[in-house]
């Protein structure tokens, strides 16, 4: 498993490329450089460990792997608390939409640079707006609680602490997923707080 070394990747979406063929996984990882922070896993078990250790926004999952297959990994991710998006990398392209599929998108091997970048960008945008929605919900609640508490009370208030941490985490994630498109966040922040 290799971590991206580019410092600038820190503020970018996080992707995990899973393929039992190291050559394929590495090739996709390089194609995503500059777009996101990429890690690679060379098998289903490796992939599950990586997801446990780090938060990933998008997983590129090779469907047919010996041992734990892509479909089995997907099943485990769904059972766990993984909340990112999954792009299945398949051997065939039947031309189906993904409406009732258990994954969010699929790409047919071999995947060229532009296609994989476009697919990942698209999933990051969709996830970004989802996270943004969650953030607005949590942040509104946090402000309501904040308005009801004095500065001293806030420091020891458990619920407020949790809301604060969640809001910060969601804001960071939405910003890294949406990049410049996260302007809505600045507009939201610009709305004066009720207590001030």
């Amino acid at each position, binding site marked *: 498993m290799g971590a991206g*070394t580019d410092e600038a990747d820190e503020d970018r979406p996080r992707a995990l490329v899973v393929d039992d063929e190291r050559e394929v996984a*590495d*090739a996709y990882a*390089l194609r995503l450089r500059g777009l996101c922070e990429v890690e690679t896993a060379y098998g289903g078990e490796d992939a599950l460990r990586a997801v446990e250790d780090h938060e990933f926004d998008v997983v590129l999952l090779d*469907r047919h792997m010996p041992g734990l297959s892509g479909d089995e990994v997907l099943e485990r991710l769904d059972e766990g608390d993984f909340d990112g998006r999954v792009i299945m990398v398949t*051997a*065939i*392209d*039947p031309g*189906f939409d993904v409406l009732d599929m258990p994954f969010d998108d699929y790409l047919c091997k071999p995947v060229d640079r532009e296609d994989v970048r476009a697919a990942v960008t698209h999933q990051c945008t969709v996830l970004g707006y989802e996270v943004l929605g969650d953030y607005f919900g949590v942040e509104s609640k946090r402000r309501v609680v904040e308005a009801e508490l004095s500065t001293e009370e806030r420091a020891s208030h458990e619920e407020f602490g949790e809301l604060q941490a969640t809001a910060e985490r969601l804001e960071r994630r939405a910003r890294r997923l949406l990049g410049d498109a996260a302007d809505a966040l600045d507009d939201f922040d610009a709305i004066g707080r009720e207590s001030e």
Partner: protein
Amino acid sequence: MNDPARNAPIGMLDVAPDGTVRDLNPAARELLDFGGADPTDEPIDAVFPQSVEARVPRFFETSTDRERSFDAYYPDLDRWLDVSLVPDGNTVYLYLRDRTEERRTERQLADARGDVDRLTVTSELIADVLGELVAASTRAEIAETICAQLGETDLYEFAWVGERAVGSADLVMRAAAGADNRTLDRIADELDGDGRVPERRAIESGEPETVQSLGEADAVPEPIRRAAFADGVQSLLAVPLTDGESVHGVVGVYASDRDAFSERERRNFGIVGEMAGFAVTAARNRSLLSADTVVELTFSLTDADAPLVAAAAETETSLSVTGLVPDGDRLVCYLDAEGDAPGAVERALDGETVLGTRTVADHDDGGSFEVLLDESTPLGQLVGQGATLRSATYDAGEGRIVVELPPEAEVRRIADAFSRAHDATVVAKRERRREATTVGEFRDALGDRLTDRQENALRTAFFADYFESPRGSTAEEVAEALGITGPTLLHHLRAGQRKLLDEFFETTD
């Protein structure tokens, strides 16, 4: 760089500790695909190809005083390189060897080992299925055995067994096992609908058939293709359950791997299909044999409205039915009468349900009649329910009717309906084996009845095409062949034909 280094069969770069490339040999230039570009005086992280772990640039970013060696894949070069970084004073020597060939060979070997392992496992599995099939005695057991063995292994996603009804193209799902998934659900839907399941082709050809890529198989209905793609079920092996020319059904085995079914596996599974087909035939025959038990019911009929009961009572004559031929909505019934003059019996047979009578034979102490009865009469009703008449006798106001019902008939319902409609009660009920007569037995029995002359006359006339239309030979010609007169031949033929038909229709005299 000196000549030995320049001519070395491995790639070699001379790099400053700060990462500036000073020199490289032609082998390195080729391995790194530099072409005409000149990397000298350039920083190594700008010219060295990218890899996921980027260990070469990282080496120069951190400490360069310890030797390092590793294998890495360089996607842009599509090459595996064995890289050694050897610090030597004010220089770092970078050695490169192409490892692509070895890596690919290793992978091929691993794949081949995987194939062998899979074949071993499938061979064992097939042996297990065959072993269990021998013990399975019913069709349900056969289907469940196959499904349990094939559906629940890690090799395959799921399996189902479809069986064909006798004389029908329709498939019915007999058993299924393995992962719960939408593909199986869609297959079940398709069976309820048009029945265009992917296994159809195997049923039609009678040979095991594979589908390698279900998602893309245009012949497969789209709901099944979509479900298979969603489930990650990629390939199918359809094995017909065959016995000789007949196809009893099919096993569908579904796998996630496109190459799950090699030619060898296809053949091996063919044996499973033949074995299972044979077992299905055996199971069917067993149940057909058991269908030879029939239910025999004896009714006592005292219904004064029943024409035969009434006629027997009125004339104080015993009547017995000798033959019964259903003819549309009426019965042609042959009766023997004993006692009173036949004319009286014939006159006594009247009423709406008697459609006609004719005297066939008239003796002093009785005679034979033909009576046409309406289907609403007791005999008509029983025959209409699928009963076979064994005997019917009428005496002093009571009829005794013995019928046989096939085992699948609803005996109680038929008996109740009959008792309600007429003044009748069931006086006996028993199950017994229906006598199956083989061709050999029939011939033996007939041989006992025919005289040699009768058999000779029949055989000669038959082979002389006397019975063909138009006749191949005249009676005179056949008679001449046998050295007898024409009238004698006709006499033998008529006697022989009557015995032949007697035996065939099982009438006794």
